[in-house]
């Protein structure tokens, strides 16, 4: 009964997610951090990443 609505909502969600992923991979990462695109989103990687999340406010605010 709601197949068309569900299909439309899924298409909009996918489009929004892809736009967000595209925006995030364009962000200049903090030094030593790399951004990798995945199907679900983006992955940040780098040395001492957890520790840097505590000490580096720019890393904590990534994507905002």
């Amino acid at each position, binding site marked *: 009964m709601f197949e068309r609505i569900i299909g439309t909502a899924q298409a909009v969600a996918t489009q929004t997610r892809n736009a967000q992923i595209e925006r995030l991979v364009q962000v200049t990462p903090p030094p030593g951090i790399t951004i990798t695109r995945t199907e679900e989103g983006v992955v940040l990687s780098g040395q001492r990443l957890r*520790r840097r999340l*505590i000490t580096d*406010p720019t890393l*904590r605010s990534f994507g*905002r």
Partner: protein
Amino acid sequence: MSAVMDLQKAVVAHLSADPALAELMGVYDGPPPRAAFPYAVLGDGLVTDWSTKTEAGREVRFAVTLWDDGEVPARLHRLTDAVEAAMATLPRTLADGRIISLIFLRTLIARDPAGPWGGLVEHRIRILQNQEI
């Protein structure tokens, strides 16, 4: 905007007075040159505009970082929980503004092989500045 500075002062006073945080050797509004463990530092946070048509406002990503040199993170876990609980009871009235909302975002604990345990407690705080009439 002075309300953000007021917020920092209010948090320092509130955390310093909390009996559950009596273990802390100090609460600092910037990295201390020398401090005994465990201690807390109010970190720099992202500040963005949250003004309305009629009032000046700020949204602050407010981070409290905790540092401890213990062998295990048990004390730091206890302290991060206590900071989270204390932040929930932060007075909503500031010297030059008022807190409209205070939302817990995340905690994180990590250790550097060559350094102390580090803990993070982050909140999103929205402030409106008092208007002069």
